[in-house]
């Protein structure tokens, strides 16, 4: 028993966690007071997730100790964490799609409770906190925001003293985020402490009373976010100065249309896919068109249709006026279209294969000298790999490492570089900087801008509104498989786009900018 921890709710002392020789967490100290909203800030890979997993009992620290209300505790598993009064809402939900809200919650409760009791209690709590939920609704019918509510209510039913939220707004619209903040503030005023994990600075400043900033597994600062500027917080988080993106000339409205999409409809293959409903737009030479929207509103399906991973009617998609809806991804690449998919590992790259093999993955049939007859020329593949890594500043541990050993940012630079290095007429990118560190993200955005300046037509699908406002000339929003009309970025604002993300937009038939 220590005296120092007596009034703190939670105290971490010198917590370390190693993965082999890699220090994921290095002597972390952290103190959380009752009723406080405490931010844990850091870039992807800074060690935030590792730290909270130890708090929630799904990982064990290698060094250091955890004090809960002043007493040292060992949190062996999530059930023990819940018994102490720690609740957690994960970034990736752990809900059964086919079960109802009440059934999902019952799974996390002690076995002796009746389903009807749970249903009654959860509806009472959800009403009380302004988190409307129907106990009998099936999860697969719920929006992402509603699913998150289920997770939050599930935690609240256990009356936690500490609620951990991991990147809760990454799946929410700005409006939904505001609603969430109201709930969190109310919980805080009632004495529940909240550990809020994020890399979004504006949110942290608006919501949190204290912040602990992690970088490379170490605590670099403790601060009061309200006393800092966004820039000073960003600098603490990233370390070095943040790259400023060069301004650019926007594409001309009279430039030729490279990609034309007309009346694109596609029925979702499974119950969990979104159907595309009469999507119309075009992208011109030299411009960046951005599509905003919350993940799961048809963006993946749109990307699959554009790339040719899913065939459509020929006329629905045209590249340079040529109908391509029925063509394979290979044939579209031969027409000068390049694709950068959302998932880097397992879609844009084979995780276990070397970078040079991953060059072969999308460049076969396109590059000179990459094949002789049926055989691959690995020497050419390695040369192309060297060129990409040099031109796009891909940092890697050794000469030709497997794709999975690269960090998210470096792999994304490699993947983008691979597609555009030989010159591209049309580049379609889904979530270009998702899970990428700030330095690489800035470089990737600059690459896209440069490509447009060189005359490529670029379509960027992204969840990151800041990014879209920064780089795109025109913006449209996707919601439930429908696409709004494109408007020039200068003529819209975040609120307007945010509203459209919820699906509130008029149906302009044959809309085209």
């Amino acid at each position: 028993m220590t005296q120092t921890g007596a009034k703190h709710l939670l105290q971490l002392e010198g917590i370390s966690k190693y993965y082999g020789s890699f220090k994921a967490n290095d002597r972390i100290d952290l103190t959380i007071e009752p009723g406080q909203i405490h931010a844990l800030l850091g870039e992807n890979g800074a060690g935030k997730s590792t730290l909270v997993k130890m708090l929630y009992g799904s990982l064990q620290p290698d060094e250091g100790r955890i004090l809960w209300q002043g007493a040292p505790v060992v949190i062996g598993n999530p059930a023990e964490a819940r018994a102490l009064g720690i609740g957690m809402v994960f970034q990736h939900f752990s809900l059964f799609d086919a079960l109802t809200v009440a059934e999902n919650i019952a799974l996390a409760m002690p076995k002796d409770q009746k389903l009807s009791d749970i249903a009654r209690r959860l509806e009472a709590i959800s009403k009380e906190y302004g988190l409307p939920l129907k106990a009998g609704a099936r999860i697969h019918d719920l929006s992402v925001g509603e699913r998150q509510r289920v997770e939050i209510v599930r935690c609240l039913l256990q009356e936690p003293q500490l609620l951990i939220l991991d990147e809760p707004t990454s799946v929410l619209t700005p409006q939904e985020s505001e609603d969430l903040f109201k709930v969190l503030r109310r919980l805080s005023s009632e004495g529940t402490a909240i550990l809020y994990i994020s890399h979004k600075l504006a949110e942290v400043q608006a919501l949190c009373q204290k912040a602990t900033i992690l970088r490379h597994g170490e605590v670099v600062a403790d601060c009061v976010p309200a006393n800092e500027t966004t820039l000073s917080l960003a600098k603490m988080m990233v370390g070095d100065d943040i790259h400023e993106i060069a301004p650019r000339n926007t594409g001309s409205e009279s430039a030729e249309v490279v990609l034309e999409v007309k009346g694109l409809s596609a029925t979702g293959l499974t119950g969990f896919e979104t159907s595309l409903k009469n999507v119309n737009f075009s992208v011109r030479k030299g411009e960046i068109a951005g599509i905003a929207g919350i993940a799961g509103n048809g963006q993946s399906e749109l990307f699959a249709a554009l790339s040719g991973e899913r065939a459509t009617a020929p006329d629905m998609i045209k590249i340079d006026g040529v109908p391509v809806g029925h063509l394979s991804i290979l044939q579209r690449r031969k027409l000068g279209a390049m694709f950068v998919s959302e998932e880097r590992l397992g879609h844009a790259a084979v995780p276990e294969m070397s970078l040079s093999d991953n060059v072969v993955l999308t460049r076969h049939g396109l590059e000179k000298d990459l094949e002789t007859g049926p055989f691959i020329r690995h020497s050419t593949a390695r040369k192309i790999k060297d060129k990409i890594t040099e031109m796009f500043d891909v940092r890697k541990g050794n000469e030709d490492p497997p794709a999975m050993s690269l960090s998210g940012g470096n792999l994304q630079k490699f993947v983008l570089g691979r597609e555009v290095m030989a010159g591209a007429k049309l580049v379609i990118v889904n979530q270009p900087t998702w899970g990428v560190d700030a330095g690489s993200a800035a470089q990737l955005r600059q690459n896209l801008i440069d490509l447009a300046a060189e005359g490529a037509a670029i379509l960027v699908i992204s969840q990151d509104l800041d990014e879209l406002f920064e780089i795109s000339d025109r913006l449209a929003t996707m919601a439930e498989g429908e696409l709004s009309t494109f408007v020039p970025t200068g003529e819209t604002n975040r609120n307007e786009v945010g509203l459209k993300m919820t699906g509130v937009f008029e149906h302009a038939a044959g809309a085209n900018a």
Partner: protein
Amino acid sequence: MRLELIKRSAPAPSMRILSPLLGLFLALIAGAIMFSALGKAPDRALYAFFIEPVSEMWSVHELLIKAAPLILMGAGLCICFQSNNWNIGAEGQMIVGAIFGAALPILLPDVQNFLILPLMLIFGILGGMLYGFIPALLKAKFKTNEILTSLMLVYVAQMLLDWIVRGPWRNPEGMNFPESRRFHEWARIPEMIPADGRANWGFVIAIIVAVALGIMLAKSLKGFEVKVIGTSPKAAQFAGFDRQKMIFFAFLLAGGCAGLAGIIEVAGATGQLRPTVSPGYGFTAIIVAYLGRLNPIGAIVAGLVLALTYLGGEAAQISLGLSDKIARVFQGLILFFVLACDTLILYKIRLTFGAAHKGAA
């Protein structure tokens, strides 16, 4: 004290090689225990099982005869399994290949020239491919589980063979034994060194096929396609590789190899069709593929090892008076231990002592 599995940060390349050796070693230990439980001196039994069969020239020849179909089918299955197509029916494809190839000398016994043997081999390959085509079509068109269909088709093939040698193809001069007529000389695969033993050129064919498949897998775009489709289906789609076409490619390739193995077996070692063509070579080939690290070149070594278990089984029967089912047990042990040791490629083992890990590790 307890054992803990710790995930490695990257797969250990050394373990990829060591795992099958370790698996073999553990299978030997388990075998020794089994022999002592049967009341035999384990050292003498293991000697009789694994060393004696290769201590004489004629029995080395027998080893090569048994290794040829195992290597051929194992190499084909390596490609099939790597592409995520689970063909369990090589045994059936081998039988149908044997029937197709044997049709020529049985139905046209008077056609005797140098063309007959190459034609038989081609017919054998076609038969195996045709039989592999069935589960491929069912999988591609109706999403049927290929493990079940290819396995069930083995029993159909066995029944077909049984019927054909007792009925329409029974040797008219064979005193009603359930056997086909004996193949004439032109329809037999010549022996390599007749003075030493019975081994025929089928073994060389097997080696050539395995090496060719090894090169295809390592160097060609098709081989690359096989690996990508197997490890990362979505990336394969992104690369423009067609999974549906790969189902047919994999099954036709593995089926063709099995059909070739079938005709080599009957035109080489037996010289006629009998109610059974293979003592389960098609199933043992699955073990060959895994022991050979799903690499056709590795399948050559693995094929020789598993051929030894067949010889060992016969030796155990003769010199130890044990059932030749012992061979089956050994094959099972080898597969079991090799798959278990494969865990070590991705994980390492840590021994923890004391009880200080109630929660904290």
